[in-house]
């Protein structure tokens, strides 16, 4: 375990802080919420303009990221954004009951997701479609949840990706327990150690469960990375309704490191998450990461953000787009040509078309699903209910239709 004292006065993101602030554009919008508050404390490796900034602390964590890896991260982000937009559109067309957009959070999710190793475990909230993608979960498997034909489709163990959790904060404790299990099994302590990551939002930080997750993980030295995507909004409530201080500083009260990373910088997210996971693998967990990002779309398709936030805010954040900065970086530095960008775009279109096709042809579950898998071991009372209901349905069928 790392010394508590070390984190009593943390100096997070020490390296690249100076360059991190990009005040010029932000200052255009005087009177708006301080979207640059991430500034001085923000760990950033790639500026919104696509410039690589050095980080003595974190460069080593992305030393292997060559042009190819970077192109891969770009592709990941383009694909999930495309799938996200397609899903959003399909909701509008009545194919999905609801959609929870990740727009704007691609870097936070791809960067952190790609930092994970196969045997690591991720506990998502409900917006982590990008993380799901990095865990090899087929995007199609997500759709059932939002089509409301299903509550979680994938094999959580094979993918190291827990089911989505909707009740705010619950998964943080579940992840703490899982990480304790990794530790109890002796899977922590060296380079090969296992780790767990748990995702939650800025709003979630107020929930008792998140606090208790902090307490447990700290007391049991659990190999757990708390990954808070601060997308500035909890539905209609800005972060100021949840906290006086930047959220990463919450860790100070518990005695483990907290760090704020530019959540729109995929490289920084990758680096910082790898570092944090590394701490956990070696038994120095937990770690809190606040990924400072922005929810560029509505909370969900049922939400109307024009009721509570100014469109200017969105305009400012567009300048910090997570995909654009990688694109510019790749292009300016000759790491990718137009052909590459075109190909990725084409691949994304195919990806979306395939998704669309799948969604439009998705069958509804049979009525028996209501009764199945309530328990692992039989419940006679429930079996009787099922039989009675199926007999009732059969009665209708005999009588010629329901």
């Amino acid at each position: 375990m790392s010394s508590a004292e070390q984190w009593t006065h943390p100096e997070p993101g020490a390296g690249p802080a100076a360059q991190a602030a990009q005040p010029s554009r932000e200052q255009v919008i005087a009177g708006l919420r301080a979207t640059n508050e991430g500034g001085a404390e923000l760990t950033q490796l790639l500026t919104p303009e696509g410039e690589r900034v050095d980080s003595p602390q974190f460069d080593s964590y992305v030393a292997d990221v060559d042009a190819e890896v970077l192109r891969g991260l770009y592709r990941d982000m383009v694909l999930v954004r495309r799938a996200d937009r397609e899903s959003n559109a399909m909701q509008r067309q009545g194919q999905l009951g609801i959609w929870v957009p990740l727009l704007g959070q691609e870097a936070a999710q791809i960067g952190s997701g790609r930092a994970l190793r196969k045997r690591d475990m991720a506990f998502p909230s409900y917006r982590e479609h990008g993380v799901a993608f990095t865990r090899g979960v087929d995007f199609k498997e997500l759709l059932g949840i939002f089509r409301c034909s299903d509550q979680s489709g994938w094999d959580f163990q094979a993918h190291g990706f827990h089911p989505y959790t909707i009740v705010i904060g619950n998964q943080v404790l579940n992840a703490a327990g899982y990480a304790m299990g990794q530790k109890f099994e002796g899977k922590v302590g060296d380079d090969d150690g296992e780790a767990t990551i748990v995702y939650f939002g800025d709003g979630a930080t107020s929930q008792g469960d998140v606090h208790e997750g902090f307490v447990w993980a700290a007391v049991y030295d659990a190999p757990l990375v708390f990954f808070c995507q601060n997308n500035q909004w909890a539905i209609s409530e800005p972060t100021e309704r949840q906290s006086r201080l930047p959220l990463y500083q919450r860790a100070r009260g518990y005695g483990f490191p907290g760090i704020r990373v530019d959540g729109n910088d995929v490289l920084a997210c990758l680096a910082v998450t790898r570092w944090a996971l590394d701490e956990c693998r070696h038994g120095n967990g937990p770690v809190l990461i606040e990924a400072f990002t922005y929810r560029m779309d509505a909370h969900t398709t049922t939400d109307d953000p024009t009721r509570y936030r100014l469109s200017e805010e969105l305009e400012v954040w567009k300048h910090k787009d997570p995909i654009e900065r990688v694109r510019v970086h790749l292009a300016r530095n000759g790491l990718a040509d137009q052909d590459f960008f075109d190909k990725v775009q084409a691949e994304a279109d195919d990806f979306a078309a395939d998704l669309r096709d799948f969604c439009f042809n998705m069958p509804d579950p049979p009525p028996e699903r209501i009764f199945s898998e309530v328990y692992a071991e039989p419940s006679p009372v429930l079996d009787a209910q099922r039989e009675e209901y199926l007999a009732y349905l059969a009665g209708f069928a005999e009588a010629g239709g329901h």
Partner: protein
Amino acid sequence: MAAPVKSTVDSAHSTVQKLTIGKGLNLGLRTAMEADDKVIILGEDVGKLGGVFRITDGLQKDFGEQRVLDTPLAESGIIGTAVGLAVRGFRPVCEIQFEGFIFPGFDQISSQLAKLHYRSQGRIKMPVVIRVPFGGGIGAVEHHSESPESLFSHIPGLKVVSCSNPADAYWMIQQAIACDDPVLFFEPKRLYHSGAVRAEVDTAATPDPLFASRVVRQGTAATVVAYGPSVKVCLDAATAAAEEGTSLEVIDLRTLSPLDLGPVFESVRRTGRLIAVSEAPSESSLTSEIAARVQQECFYSLEAPVLRVTGFDTPYPPSKLEEEYLPDLDRVLHAVDRSLSW
């Protein structure tokens, strides 16, 4: 106790408005806030957004941020601070965004809200209302369609009510706020903006008491009792049954705790048959309680056992299946048939 809810007739304007349940609640909240400045609203997104269902629409704008509070995201916090505000003399109205999210607040509800009056020998009043949109039928994802009201009806010290129509929405919310006891107020979310139950509400009328059931359709062959969203299902069933010559009496429970089963007993003594309808799972539920009490009070009148039409004893299923899960007209009529042919 705060002054009982009375209508204030404004002779210059018509007092009759056509309202949905959602609008009825909104207007009721507004009226209560105007009448007593100790009434404050707490919840997630209840301010600028007006709540995800817009029930508090416009209230923060008109009453300010100290009377309509966008709280941090934690239900124990919402209810726990409401308890403290009530100790201070406020009359907090909490909004729980969806019933599935009331559980983090369960402890404050059962340990403090329900017990402080008893513990303090009546010195501390708890005039707190917890508004809970509940029930299914909106095609939602998990935790957004449940019916946990039975849990609260099992907890002594709480009062639990549910409205099923715009007039009740308008009056009952005001009465709940005026009540010096904690009231869990269950709102049939799928009917919030439904035109099918929109109705004229006379804000100058004298409302029925809050803790009273009501016969909403008279009949002779069998009694059907329901509350909240199921009342409409049962009324529709009664209409369908009438076309086939079966006369059903329908009772809107309205108050779930304390139960007001007098009208049910009276009805069953005439019809000899009872069907209790609810979207909640049946095990250890309100419909169990109704059956238990009716079989005792009407033992010699019953010509068939009390039958129940409820959600199944499973988690709420993926909502593509909710039409199968929720009691519908067919299942109610099927139960009526079973009762009649017992």
